[in-house]
C-alpha cells in the first residue's frame, strides 16, 4: 500500500512561496509549463506533450474552450473535474480519437515534443501508435486469447522482426500480469477478472511501445484491490512513459500524479503540482471542488 502523499518541507515551502498568479489558465502558451517547474524533474527519455489553444466540438457544442496545457515527460499528469467538464474529451484529442466520433472535431495544436499531431503530413495511425490509450472499461478483444490480445497491436499493424513471445512477456510483466496469466496465455482474454482485463489492456497498449500513455478513468470499473494494482503499475510506467490520466477520484489523483489540472465547463481552471492543487489552490473554484463543495 502506498501511503497518502505527504509533502516534504521543501515542497511546502515552495508552495507557500509560490506567487498567486502562478496559474496558467489559457495564458500565453509559452509560460504554461511554469507550475511544473516546482516538481523535481525525473531523469527519463520520455516525450512531452503541449496543447496550445485547443477547441473541441461535438457538432455545434463546444466541449473544450481554448485550453493550453503541458504534459511533461516521465511524469503523471492527472486531469480532474466534475462530469462534463471536458477532461475526457481533451484526453481523446491528445491521440486524435476525438475525431472518431461523428460530427466531432478539434481545432488548435497538440505538440508531441515539437511536432503538431494535427499538422499536415502527420498520419493519424502513426499518432495513435506513438500515443497509446487505456479506456475506462476494460475492453479486451473477445475473439482473442490473452497472448493475441497483447500482440494485437503489433500483429494488426503488420510489425515484422519483433520476437512476439518476448514482447508479449515483457508487456505482461510491465503490466504486472505475467505471473497471473503465464500459464493460460492461450485462454480467452475475456475470461480474466475485471482488474486483470484492465491490466491486460494496459499490456496491450504498451506492447506497441508508445511514447505517451493516456488513461481515461482506468480504475473506475475496478474494485479497490485491482485499483491499487493498476495504480502501482502507473507509478512504474512513468519511468518509461509520459502518462496523462483522467480520474474522478481525487484521492487517486493525489496518490498518483506529479501535477494535477482542474477543469470546469470545458476550461482549464488551474494546473499545478498535485500537492498545491489539493492543499493550496489559487483558484477558489478549484478549492471548492477539491474540498467537496460541488462536483
Amino acid at each position, binding site marked *: 500500500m502506498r501511503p497518502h502523499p505527504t509533502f516534504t518541507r521543501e515542497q511546502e515551502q515552495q508552495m507557500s512561496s509560490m506567487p498567486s498568479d502562478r496559474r496558467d489558465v489559457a495564458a500565453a502558451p509559452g509560460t504554461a509549463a511554469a507550475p511544473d517547474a516546482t516538481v523535481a524533474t525525473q531523469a527519463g527519455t520520455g516525450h512531452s506533450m503541449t496543447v496550445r489553444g485547443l477547441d473541441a466540438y461535438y457538432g455545434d457544442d463546444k466541449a473544450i474552450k481554448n485550453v493550453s496545457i503541458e504534459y511533461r515527460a516521465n511524469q503523471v499528469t492527472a486531469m480532474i473535474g466534475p462530469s462534463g467538464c471536458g477532461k475526457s474529451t481533451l484526453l481523446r484529442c491528445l491521440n486524435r480519437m476525438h475525431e472518431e466520433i*461523428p460530427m466531432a472535431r478539434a481545432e488548435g495544436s497538440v505538440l508531441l515534443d515539437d511536432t503538431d499531431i494535427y499538422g499536415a503530413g502527420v498520419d493519424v495511425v502513426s499518432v495513435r501508435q506513438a500515443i497509446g490509450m487505456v*479506456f475506462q472499461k476494460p475492453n479486451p478483444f473477445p475473439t482473442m486469447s490473452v497472448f493475441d490480445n497483447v500482440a494485437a497491436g503489433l500483429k*494488426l499493424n503488420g510489425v515484422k522482426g519483433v520476437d512476439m513471445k518476448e514482447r508479449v512477456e515483457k508487456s505482461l510483466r510491465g503490466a504486472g500480469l505475467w505471473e497471473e496469466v503465464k500459464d493460460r496465455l492461450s485462454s480467452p482474454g475475456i475470461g480474466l477478472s475485471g482488474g486483470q482485463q484492465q491490466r491486460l*489492456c494496459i499490456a496491450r*497498449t504498451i506492447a506497441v511501445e508508445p511514447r505517451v500513455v493516456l488513461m481515461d478513468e482506468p480504475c473506475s470499473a475496478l474494485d479497490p484491490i485491482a485499483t491499487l494494482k493498476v495504480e502501482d503499475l502507473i507509478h512504474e510506467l512513468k519511468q518509461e512513459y509520459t502518462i496523462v490520466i483522467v480520474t474522478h477520484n481525487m484521492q487517486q489523483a493525489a496518490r498518483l500524479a506529479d501535477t494535477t489540472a482542474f477543469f470546469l465547463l470545458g476550461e482549464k481552471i488551474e494546473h499545478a503540482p498535485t500537492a498545491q492543487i489539493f492543499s493550496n489552490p489559487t483558484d477558489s473554484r478549484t478549492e471548492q471542488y477539491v474540498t467537496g463543495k460541488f462536483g
Partner: protein
Amino acid sequence: MNTTAAQLLAPTSGRRRTTDRVMRAVLALGTVVALIPLVLVIYYLFSRGLKGMSSTFFTSDPTGNFLGDPGGVKSAILGTLEIVALASAIAIPVGIGVALYLVEFGKKTLFAHVVRYFIDVMTGVPSIVFGLFIYVTLVTSKIGGSFTGWKGSLALALLMLPVVTRSAEVVLDLVPESLREAALALGVPRWKVTLKIVLPTALPGLITGSLLAVARGMGETAPLLFTSATVMGTTYNLGERMNSLPVQIFNDISQPNDAIVNRAWASALTLVLIILTITLIARVAARRSRVA
C-alpha cells in the same frame, strides 16, 4: 384504526383475481389456436410425405410418365442445392459488404439512409417480382440461353440480399464501439479494424443471419418459375434449365395422379427437412454469438 395484519394483507378485490385467471386462459387458448395449423402442417407433411418416399426417391429423376413409376426427385434436390449455393455465393458477400459499409462507414450520411430505405423496400417486394424482373431482363433477351439455373440463382440472390444485409447490419451494430476504439487507439487503420476485429467478433451472428436467408431462399418457388424453369434430368450445369424442389412441388401437386401428388408431398418433406437442418445449424451458431 386498529387493523390486524391478516386484514391488511387480505385480497382487496376478488375481481382482479378473476380477471387474471380469465386473461391467462384467453392467452393460453390463443397459443393453442396458433399451434393447431402448425401441428397439422407437420402431421400432413409426414403422413403424406412418407407415403411418397420410395427406395428410388432420392436416387432417380422424374420420368415424366403419368402412368406407372413417376420417378424420384434427384434432379430437383441437386438443382435446389446448386441454385441456392450460387445465390448464396452472390447474396451473402454482397449483403455483408453493404452492411459493413452502412455500419462502419456510411453511418448517418444521407446516402446510407437512402440505401437503408431501399433495402427495406426490397424486403417487402413479393418474390414473384424478382422472378419477373430476371425474366424480362435476362430470359426474354436470351442472354446466355433462355431459361438457366444461374438466372434462377440471380433472382434468389435479389430476394436474399436485403435479408442478409438487414440481419448483418443488426449484428454488426452489436459489436461494442469500445472494441473499435481499442483497436483504433492501438494505431490500427480503420479497414483493418473492420476486417480483423469487427468481422470476427460478429462472425457467429453473421453466419446465423446468412443461413436464415439461405433457408428463406431455398423455399421460394416464384423466382425460379420463369428463370430456371423445370426439367426432368439431373444437370450440374448452371447454364442449362434446372429442376428445383419448390418448382417440382408446384408442378406435381396439380397432376391428376396420386403417385405424382404423393411425390409432391415427399418433396415438400425433403425441402422442409433440408431447411430445418440449416436453421438448426444457424441456431447453434447463434448460441456462440454472445458478443461480450
